[in-house]
């Protein structure tokens, strides 16, 4: 456990010592702020329009959850597709390039511990990132009248964290294959984006294939959480993808021992 925390601490420190953490956080919050501002402006506009039209039924349909929080979360998840691989690209590629991989691999610490430490470090960073973005939700809750439904919003931001963790696992996996950070970032981005869009042909693909594609699509499961529906099947999906990506990473790192 101590070695896992040692590695996690080193990773986390590494993010904040290099400019990467600040660039990524700034970019994420900047885009998030832009989305938030625009969604809120549109919400206000529609609210104003409906009340001018004296249409109480339509007015009752407009709420912060559906009109601001949901689209905000979906937009942020797209940003994560791009940013998370940037965070994880260093994890193994940089160690290999700098030669510190030799230190790690000849120290009395198991591959699983290295992996767990690196994942934990990334997870804490992503928690900070999603936590800061949850500030947008907090603003709505403080100033909204009526505010958004808190449990639904919590499920949504929880889902955003889960999607970030899943992308981190996939990104780390891509980083384990190469010693080039750019290749790690690009392949991670492609893999995450693939998870994002794999469900697109689901509607036209016919019964069994369509269902499979729909199940594989990360957006399908994320959308449920964003709506506030916390289903173990969706949570299981995130767990499964993460476990699979981490397993492949472990296998790739270990394979050095018998190649």
């Amino acid at each position, binding site marked *: 456990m101590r*070695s896992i925390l040692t590695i996690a601490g080193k990773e986390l420190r590494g993010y904040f010592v*290099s400019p990467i953490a600040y660039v990524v956080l700034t970019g994420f919050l900047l885009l998030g702020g832009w989305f938030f501002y625009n969604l809120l402006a549109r919400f206000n506009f529609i609210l104003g329009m409906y009340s001018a039209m004296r249409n109480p039924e339509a007015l009752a349909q407009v709420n912060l959850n559906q009109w601001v929080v949901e689209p905000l979360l979906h937009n942020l998840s797209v940003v994560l597709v791009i940013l998370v691989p940037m965070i994880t690209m260093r994890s193994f590629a940089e160690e290999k390039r*700098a030669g510190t*991989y*030799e230190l790690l*691999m000849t120290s009395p610490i*198991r591959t699983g511990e290295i992996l767990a430490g690196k994942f934990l470090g990334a997870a804490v960073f992503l928690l900070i990132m999603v936590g800061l973005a949850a500030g947008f939700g907090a603003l709505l809750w403080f100033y909204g009248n009526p505010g958004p439904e808190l449990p639904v919003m919590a499920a949504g931001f929880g889902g955003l964290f889960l999607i970030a963790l899943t992308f981190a696992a996939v990104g780390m996996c891509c980083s384990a294959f190469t010693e080039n950070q750019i290749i790690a970032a690009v392949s991670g981005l492609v893999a995450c984006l693939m998870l994002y869009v794999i469900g697109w042909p689901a509607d036209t693909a016919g019964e069994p294939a369509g269902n499979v594609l729909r199940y594989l699509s990360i957006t399908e499961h994320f959308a449920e959480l964003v709506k506030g529906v916390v289903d173990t099947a969706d949570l299981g999906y995130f767990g499964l993808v993460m476990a699979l990506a981490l397993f492949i990473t472990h296998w790739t790192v270990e394979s050095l021992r018998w190649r």
Partner: protein
Amino acid sequence: MIEVTRLTKRYGDLVAVDDVSFRVDEGQILGFLGPNGAGKTSTMRMITGFRPPTSGTVRIGGHDTVTESMEVRRRIGYLPESPPLYLDMTVTGYLRFVGRLKGIARSQLSDAMERTISVCGLADVCDRILGHLSKGYRQRVGLAQALIHNPPVLVLDEPTIGLDPRQIIEIRQLIRQLAGNRTVILSTHILPEVSQVCERVVIINDGRVAVDGMLAELTRHRSLEEVFLQAVSRETAPRGGADASAADDA
């Protein structure tokens, strides 16, 4: 202490290390010589367990590097060809990280760090960032990293490469000081280094052991240069190629 038995490493068709066997007794300093590309680094990587052998075994204090990897790793301090440094860390921060990684107990960590810092002469640069240190100091930090858990076996891959003459002398002195009851394998292609530091010599050429013996006996009638050149030319002469020209340089 170190037993290398019929060690072979192939990368595809290339045979980097070919049926190498030797042993190093406890407390010995072994000079591991060979021209560039002779398979020194490959052998050292297999000794430390970083890379697996294609065939053959390495045992450190009776533990196999492949099947008892953790036991071996606890006993070895390894300085790779380029010191494995995180350039954004300070010297103390780095040594603390490595100390934890090597499993030094919390209560003993600061003692271990102090001891290593004083042995390696790093007291003046403790708070400096590794990336800002000169090559000589980086090499020392690399050595400190290998020493911090006080391992009985040290594997040093070209520890003086790229240093200026004064730094070379300092590092050599340091290695001699360190030896004591430690077993050391020191790879190099600088011959005077071996004469000054080592008791035993293994010369490999083209992946095979060409000479294995005590320095005093080998150099009784000839200089180490002659021993080396003869060992290296014997095998490369019919093949020619890169190794032969590297031997000429040496």
